[in-house]
């Protein structure tokens, strides 16, 4: 295995000013929900949940922990680690699909809370949102539009998950993660490999819509498990290979593989399809956090760094995939 930067492998830099991740922050809501509670409501065995999903528990945000607060906590954490002042931010991007309001964007509130006088907007690409956000941040820096961009992924998935649906209720959790992306001398964020396929949009969507006047239920996430898993397996694996290719790295250069934490079994399938060598640490934060949608990739990166499986300045292959269907992958250096 190659050692981390400096002296380690370099990423093929896209044109323009290079960008790098300077700090990652996270926020877990205080309340922990074990599988026993979920299993009892669904009338299933706890073992049924762990063996199918790998999820051993998840965090649930209470009323006093709104989305904007979770996002702001993670953001402040990332700023602190990066040694950056909120006042110096040029842009705040919040990847989320659980804004309880159609408008305004949560990002503007988050920017105000942390004391940023920056452009701020939400980005809706579900579980691929954080990786989309990284690419938008990288592009803004490459073009000279921004020098310092905060990318946050935050979701209160339990707001939109039907607690009586055995297909989704065991999987999801609430959380937030953030990365401070800034202009750098050397490339720390490789070119993106991304795609979308709206022909499969109905495989994972909230229903009913705002325009549905039947009023039978609040909007809940509805998932066609087979269709979603099939799309994810094919497209996440392809995006992972393409991201490595365009970044000019091989498995020997990589320290960690961080797929969106959708389901531990799905992660294991991807690892096998990609013929991943054993030295690459594989993110498994789904066990602790469940599927937190936009927050899942930064939470999983943070967990790998915190327990030392990912060394400082190691290279990680990130792959976000989810509703849309949408997918985005890139190789990044994690400080």
């Amino acid at each position: 295995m190659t050692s981390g930067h400096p002296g380690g492998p370099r990423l093929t830099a896209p044109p323009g000013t290079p960008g790098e991740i300077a700090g990652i922050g996270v926020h877990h809501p205080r309340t922990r929900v074990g599988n026993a509670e979920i299993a009892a409501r669904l009338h299933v065995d706890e073992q049924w949940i762990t063996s199918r999903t790998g999820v051993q528990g998840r965090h649930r945000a209470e009323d006093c922990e709104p989305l904007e607060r979770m996002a702001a906590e993670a953001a402040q954490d990332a700023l602190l680690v990066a040694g950056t002042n909120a006042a110096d931010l040029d842009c705040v991007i919040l990847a989320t699909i659980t804004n309880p309001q159609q408008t305004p964007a949560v990002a503007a509130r988050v920017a105000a809370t942390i004391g940023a006088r920056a452009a701020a907007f939400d980005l809706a690409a579900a579980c691929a949102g954080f990786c989309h956000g990284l690419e938008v941040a990288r592009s803004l820096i490459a073009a000279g539009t921004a020098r310092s961009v905060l990318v946050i992924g935050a979701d209160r998935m339990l707001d939109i998950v039907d607690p009586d649906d055995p297909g989704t209720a065991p999987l999801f959790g609430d959380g937030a993660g953030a990365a401070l992306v800034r202009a750098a001398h050397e490339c720390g964020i490789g070119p993106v490999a991304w795609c979308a396929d709206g022909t499969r949009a109905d495989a994972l969507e909230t229903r009913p819509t705002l325009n549905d006047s039947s009023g039978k239920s609040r909007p809940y996430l509805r998932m066609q498990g087979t269709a979603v898993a099939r799309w994810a397996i094919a497209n996440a694996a392809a995006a992972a290979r393409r991201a490595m290719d365009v970044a000019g790295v091989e498995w020997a250069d990589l320290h960690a593989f961080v797929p969106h934490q959708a389901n531990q079994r799905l992660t294991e399938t991807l690892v096998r399809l990609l013929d991943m060598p054993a030295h690459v640490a594989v993110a498994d934060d789904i066990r602790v956090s469940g599927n937190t949608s936009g927050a899942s990739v930064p939470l999983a990166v943070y967990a790998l760094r915190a327990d030392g499986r990912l060394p400082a300045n190691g290279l990680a292959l990130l792959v976000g995939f989810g509703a849309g269907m949408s997918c985005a992958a890139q190789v990044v250096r994690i400080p």
Partner: protein
Amino acid sequence: MADLTLAALQEIIDSAIPEWGTTLTPENADLPFEELGVDSLALIETADRLQERYAVPIPDAAVDDLRTPRLTLAFVNAALARQP
């Protein structure tokens, strides 16, 4: 293209689940895949490989109907028989 046999299906599932260790026989071919240790993700992989190797379309909805080895053989071989 030759018909899909239990032996050929065995080979495909073996590649999807390296540590599978089950042998398909006419006796267990009507058992649900789940009881044979083939979970939904392994079945998706199996469907993808069958689709590729036998050049028959297996839509997402059809994957959910491939509940046993025999139903899988029947689906693929019926699709092969329809081919010109």
